[in-house]
């Protein structure tokens, strides 16, 4: 399943897919509070919500579904391909009443590894055909996060997987503490959008309709990331980012990234990229979770926008120069 050449829906078809927001976060970080905030806010939209703990939700919503987080291993040759079969079933059934909601929110348990949820969106043809993973949103408790990250690899994974991080309970920590926390979070995941909150009081526009993996937007929020080469703890989860200014050869890139994911997929939690393929007017968006990858054209480059290919890896034991050389070797001749 490391085949990245699969045709993904184009930009217009992407918009017809139901957006799914995955909400993760450690126990007590404030996921339920945030969820209640989202559901009670006046946004004129209806969400179907897939939760684990029935009854915790304070709102009356007839589209709340109780899930069991049933994970299974795919027999597809990927050593780390675990999938949420219950989610395939639930999303499939929800799509039978498609007209009743505008989006779906999936809440995971505090200890959950986000990989099986994310991989579900790569693996199943019906899920891919009808929904799109809009964003993984991770809620972090500012008061406890530093200690939690020391003690729990799951918490590190939840941050590594995030497209959006909500730093919650910021009223319990002073400004210097918050800056230290943000620095620590950035050392794991430099591309996620980071927002501060007190009691889950985030702007909905910071959480919903994130448009998946718009890397350009992510990079606007982390301007220093590309220059920052100070990450040193190789065994820790870190983010590596690369740029190539010349157009890429699509076939070479597919072959290279396929091999990288096959060999190092267990250590690569996420990979994302916006690519400039030679001879193409459109941007190609690429993303991967462990060994599973897909991509598709997402519309033309903006007027005056530099046509630069950018690629980010978030993972462990990543070899910076080797990945750089590999990416650079994909330039079109």
């Amino acid at each position, binding site marked *: 399943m490391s085949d990245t050449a699969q045709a993904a829906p184009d930009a217009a078809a992407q918009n017809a897919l139901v957006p799914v927001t995955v909400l993760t976060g450690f126990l007590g970080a404030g996921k339920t509070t945030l969820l209640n905030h989202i559901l009670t806010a006046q946004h004129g939209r209806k969400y179907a919500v897939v939760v684990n703990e029935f009854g915790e939700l304070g709102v009356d919503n007839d589209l709340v579904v*109780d899930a069991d987080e049933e994970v299974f291993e795919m027999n597809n040759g990927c050593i780390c391909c675990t999938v949420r079969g219950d989610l395939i079933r639930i999303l499939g*059934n929800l799509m039978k009443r498609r007209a009743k909601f505008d989006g779906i929110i999936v809440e995971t348990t505090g200890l959950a590894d986000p990989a099986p949820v994310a991989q579900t969106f790569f693996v199943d*043809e019906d899920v891919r055909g009808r929904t799109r993973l809009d964003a993984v949103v991770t809620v972090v408790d500012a008061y406890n996060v530093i200690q939690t990250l020391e003690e729990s690899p799951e918490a590190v994974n939840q941050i590594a997987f995030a497209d959006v991080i909500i730093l919650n309970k910021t009223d319990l920590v002073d400004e210097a503490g918050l800056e230290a926390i943000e620095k620590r979070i950035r050392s794991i995941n430099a591309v996620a959008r980071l927002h501060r909150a007190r009691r889950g009081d985030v702007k909905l526009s910071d959480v919903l309709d994130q448009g998946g993996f718009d890397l350009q937007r992510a990079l606007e929020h982390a301007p220093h990331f590309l220059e920052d080469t100070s990450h040193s703890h190789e065994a820790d989860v870190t983010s590596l980012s690369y740029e190539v200014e010349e157009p890429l050869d699509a076939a070479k890139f597919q072959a290279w990234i396929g091999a990288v994911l096959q060999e190092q997929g267990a250590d690569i939690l996420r990979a994302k990229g916006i690519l400039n393929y030679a001879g193409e007017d459109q941007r190609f968006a690429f993303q991967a979770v462990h060994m599973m990858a897909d991509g598709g054209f997402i519309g033309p480059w903006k007027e005056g926008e530099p046509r630069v290919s950018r690629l980010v890896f978030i993972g462990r034991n990543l070899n910076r120069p080797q990945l750089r050389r590999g990416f650079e070797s994909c330039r079109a001749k």
Partner: protein
Amino acid sequence: MSDTVNDAMGPTLLERRGAIRQLEGHVTGCAIARDSQQVAFVTGEGDVVLADRADWGRADAWNVQTVHDGAILAVAPDAAPTGFLTGGDDNTLRRMAADGSVSDLVRGRRWIEHVTTWCDDKGKGGVIAFASGRQVELRDAGGHGTLKVLEHPSTVSGIVFDAKGKRIAASHYNGASMWFVQAKVDTVRPLEWKGSHIGIAIHPGGEALVTSMQESELHGWRLSDGHNMRMSGYPSKVQSMAFTRNGKWLVTSGADTIVMWPFFGGGPMGKPPAEAGGIPGVMCTRVACHPVHDIVAAGFADGSVLMADTGAQRILPVCMGGGEAVSALAFSPDGCALAFGTEDGRASVVDLSAR
């Protein structure tokens, strides 16, 4: 592949002998009563549409009523000559009598995703089974007396009675479980195979149990000795499968032809499947086997429906595509009607009786 659907064949069977009605919402299932006198369609909006035999040609006479507060996920003929059972994402199991009256059998805490019934030839002894989460509950034909509740290791994705109603099997992660309906002490027969099993069928002679898998293949167990069978090569997941009446063939969706695995002459092990017609590039989404003749019906992703002869490679188009996928398909027990529905809400009945 000798034939494909040819649209130069004049009016289709649906146009000549059928009726069609546009419903609100996705048709999630259809069933025909055991006495073959009434068709029920169910939808994602919670509606049940009843079509009496006298009205099969007049769709405007069909009775539509809202029965569930949410999508209907399962429908089966009742364990009696008339009526239907429906399960929904409002966590209820309901009974609908032939006159359209509705009663509650279950108000639970989880979606009721699968319902099936068994009834003897005389229409007297019967059993109702439904799946909700990891549990399968068996009830007497009256629907109010619980016979047993069977626990499974993960959510049940399909249930099926054997032809004699003696055993029930359920598919789930890592295999299937088989139970005796009347046993005093419930002992499971575990049939194990790693992976996510998403649907189930049983050979009418009790020779084999087959499941559909997430990895777009089928797995089977020969029930005499538990021998494993693997049937692969599908381009997509198999959502629908059915054995022919005599158990010779297992007919499935999942490809752009009707795929039929031979369950005779040593098959299906080591034998390639036969193909009974199809539509190039269009996936088959539903199949059903005729109860009397060697005929299969198949619905496709573009809304087309055709019938094929399992022996003679003849194809009869029932209705041309041009819409969304066929999501429900059933023959009546007497073989005189074919009912089908689509994701874009078309419900049809075709009268196949001799005229």
